[in-house]
């Protein structure tokens, strides 16, 4: 049976955690006003990106290591952009950037690269 490296498991868990945090923030910071739909959309977009990252770490995931890393950077950039546009709360943004950075760290380990670049399905 194939052994999944611990770093990969941690990366997947962090991706899932990021998605869950986004959904919680969506509920916490929801204010019924004109821009509510746009703000909700941003939180949902970031949540989907984090869940997609978690999926990329899964056994059946089809993303190579490069794609996983690029997607993590883009997710962090989207979080930063959302904070710039004030569509996301600053502290939620900082928390999500930290989660993204931890995912990058888990991907930077050589065992993660070896595992992600070989056929996993």
């Amino acid at each position, binding site marked *: 049976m194939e052994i999944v490296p611990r770093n990969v498991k941690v990366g997947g868990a962090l991706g899932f955690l990021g998605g869950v945090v986004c959904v919680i923030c969506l509920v916490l910071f929801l204010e019924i006003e004109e821009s509510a739909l746009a703000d909700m959309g941003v939180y949902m977009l970031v949540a989907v990106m984090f869940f997609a990252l978690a999926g990329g770490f899964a056994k059946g995931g089809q993303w190579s290591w*490069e794609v996983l*890393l*690029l997607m*993590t*950077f*883009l997710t*962090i*950039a*989207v979080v*930063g*952009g959302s904070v*710039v*546009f*004030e569509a996301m709360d600053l502290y939620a943004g900082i928390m999500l950037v930290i989660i993204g950075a931890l995912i*990058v760290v888990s991907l*930077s380990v050589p065992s993660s690269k070896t595992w992600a670049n070989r056929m996993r399905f």
Partner: protein
Amino acid sequence: MSLQKDHSVAFSWLGMIGVAVFIFAWVCAASIDTAWQFGVNTLSEFGISDTDASLYFNYGCCMITGALVAAFGIGRAAYAKNKGHAAGGTLIALGGAFLILVGLFTMDSGDVHVMIAVSMAAFLFFGIAATAVGNWNADRKVFAGVGIIVACLLVAMAVAFDVAGLEAYGIILAMIWLLSESVNMILCRKN
């Protein structure tokens, strides 16, 4: 055996010193000209201040920092591992040269100052983007990621903020990138 010495570390230190000089001059200028407000006034307003802040800005933030950034860009291009690094280094060097000109042609110069400042920002932005591509191809993925994130944030800020806000936050992002690229150059030197 190659006799050519690798001076990339020296060039990378120029980038770090450039950031330190800019921060020092910026803090000094803001302390002297207390009327200047972060994100409200443009940095170029220091250049035409009645106080000594104009000296700190024109000489410290622009001329000295510009020369150091230009030298860093030349080093990045000289020790390029691929075309992305070479293009990025050249653009950073041009950005540094235009930063020197920003100190020479202050806001009093009118459209000339605006043209030089916009050119400097464009050179630095495309330099960051090109270096990110170079780092990605050179298998320096994490450092490429810093460039990708900084470039995306700069685009977002260009849309969301006014000139004063974009300038202030954009320069902080550019300094963060310059520090990360300097560390990258130190870490990937030839042994």
